[in-house]
């Protein structure tokens, strides 16, 4: 898989405050890349640098094999966290204006607008002013403006904040469709469930430093503790517990089940799962045996609070 965006040891300072401290990232082409981090970690600073809104103090950015330069604005679509439109301007005019700024010709922009207005079923809005639209409607327009020029790289900063569930779902589907068409998507968010759902790569930035980066599965593998959740119906609980605590670290687990079984979380350390299973099957009826995979949320909290 080739790389579309490479961030190389980027440093950004505001006065004495270091916003980014030698941050490096590699975004593979065609991925949905989750850029995670708590508030004030430096995500927006990094996104602004990629969008050439601000310049890095040092370090470089390579977009599709070339050093980042002014012409690249038309390859990038950006949906900022703080977003809005000209209130007293008509929807159509406004979209045309913003599309032309991204380098589209007027006719080309019109064709694209027709396509997107059709797709999102907002054809009748062309001559409405933004101030006549509801917030959710304006957000649809915003999304259209962001993807209109068929950017190779899409950057969404908290894309779902402020969207109602219906629109959020719609946007999610559109994001997946864009990925199918070959766009790469960088996705900055706090909403871990959407990361879990959409992203295949993640990076975690905390206090101006990048702490984690990689394929989501790899990161999870890296963070898994070789623990298993176990449910067992046993008549010899004391004996079982004795056997288990001899070999493993055992804790209480919490999962949904129909029976009144013993629920345990067992950390295996270096031993194989089958050994544990052997012990368990000798002592009772196993109803539940699942490897505990850390959620993105767990990884996030674990890394940030460390």
């Amino acid at each position: 898989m080739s790389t579309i965006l490479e961030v190389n040891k980027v440093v950004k300072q505001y006065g004495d405050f270091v916003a980014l401290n030698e941050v490096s990232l590699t975004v593979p082409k065609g991925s949905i890349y989750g850029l995670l981090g708590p508030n004030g970690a430096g995500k927006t600073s990094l996104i602004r640098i990629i969008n050439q809104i601000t310049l890095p103090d040092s370090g470089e950015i390579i977009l599709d094999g070339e050093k980042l330069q002014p012409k690249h604005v038309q390859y990038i679509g950006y949906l900022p966290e703080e977003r809005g439109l000209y209130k007293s301007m008509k929807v159509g005019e406004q979209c045309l204006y913003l599309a032309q700024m991204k380098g589209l010709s007027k006719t080309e922009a019109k064709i694209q607008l027709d396509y997107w207005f059709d797709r999102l079923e907002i054809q009748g809005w062309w001559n409405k002013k933004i101030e006549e639209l509801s917030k959710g409607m304006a957000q649809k327009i915003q999304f259209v403006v962001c993807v209109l020029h068929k950017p190779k790289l899409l950057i969404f900063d908290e894309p779902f904040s402020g969207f109602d569930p219906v629109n959020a779902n719609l946007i999610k589907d559109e994001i997946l469709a864009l990925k199918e068409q070959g766009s790469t998507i960088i996705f900055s968010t706090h909403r871990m469930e959407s990361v879990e759902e959409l992203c295949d790569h993640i990076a975690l930035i905390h206090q101006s430093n990048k702490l984690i980066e990689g394929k989501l599965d790899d990161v999870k593998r890296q963070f898994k503790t070789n623990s298993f959740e176990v449910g067992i119906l046993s008549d010899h609980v004391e004996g079982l517990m004795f056997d288990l605590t001899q070999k493993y670290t055992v804790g209480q687990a919490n999962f949904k089940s129909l029976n009144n079984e013993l629920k345990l979380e067992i950390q295996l350390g270096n031993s194989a799962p089958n050994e544990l299973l052997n012990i368990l099957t000798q002592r009772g009826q196993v109803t539940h045996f699942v490897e505990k995979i850390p959620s993105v949320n767990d990884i996030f909290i674990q890394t940030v609070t460390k």
Partner: protein
Amino acid sequence: MSIISLIIKREFIAKVRNKSFIVMTFLSPLLFVGIAAFVGYLSAMKAETKRIGIHDETGIFVKEFTSKNTENSEYKYLDLSLIDVKFLKDSITNESYEGLLYIPKSDNPKDLENKIQFISNDSPSISFVEDVQDVIAKKLTAINYQAAKLDTTVIKNAEANVSINLSKASGEESLRGLNEIKIGIGGAFGYLIMMFIIIYGNMVMRSVIEEKTNRIVEIIISSVKPFQLMMGKIIGTSLAGILQFFIWTVIGLVLMFSASLFFGVNVGPTAKIPPEMMHAAQQEFASTAQMYIKELWNLPIATLLISFVVYFIGGYFLYSSFYAAIGAAVDNETDSQQFLLPIIMPLILGVYIGFFTVINDPHGTIATVFSMIPLTSPIVMLMRIPFGVPWWQIVISVIILFATFFLVVWFASKIYRVGILMYGKKPTWKELYKWLKY
């Protein structure tokens, strides 16, 4: 470049389509003409004739005054020498007299110099007192000549009357003439520049604040450089200003022309002035008008117009970059006040210097210095130009103005760049200074 023209176009259309722009553009000339017509009407109204009683015990002076009475004069003098002074003094306030001029009896005219009284309730205007003094002094002087047995014609012939011819060092034309025209034209141009800078500078600021509060600014500057956005905004807004100015000029001219036509047709016949008098009045009017028109043509018109354009561009750009930076620094218009005051101050200073210093001494040190300082030069220099300014002074002042403009744009764009992405903070001067170093 094409992106800048895109921004210019949008800003221009957004300004011009705005309802308040349309209302302002078409209403203010009407207002202006209305006020002018109203003032004209007021001044055309005949002032109430003021009656002045004269009690002249010498009998020498009263004729000098009563002979001045005409139908239209402001003061009407009445000979009340036969009525008792005491009675006059008591009744003068009750009667419809403005005042009483009391000239006591005296054998020696010399004594009269300090003894003449004017009695009234309201203090008389200075020009009236001076007129009265003048009349009496002339008469007294003539009497003195006679008493000394001097030949008045010899004295008259001996009096020299000097009139110096003024001309420019370049020798092209005479500068003698009506100062009011120079003051009027210079003042109007200077004032116009100030108004335009304030109105359109404010528009630039409001437009920056609008983009910031709309949060669209981040989308836009992900496609263009903040500097391009700022310049596009300034230029686009200035074009709207120029259009408005152009419309005003056209509408104003049309309205003034039709108004004078309207009044000329209606007022003329109803005035019932005898034909020969009207003819004389017309001739007099024509000669005054000719004088004024000639004087107008004697002004350095080309210099004036070119300078107006150059100084407007320089001054407007200079100030609107300040306005843009302020707009970027604040979140809403109320927060902008603390930064606006230092900007409006030099403009007001310029107008004051123009009206108080330039008019008295157009080429004095103060006027010259302030016509060089870039923050006041657009106003002060334009007020000076009708009085004739050496070309090298204009050149230096324009160079300073544009050099400052580039410097200020550079600083302003730095503040602008940082400011448009800062939300929710009310910045201080110290913070603005810090932004310059980002």
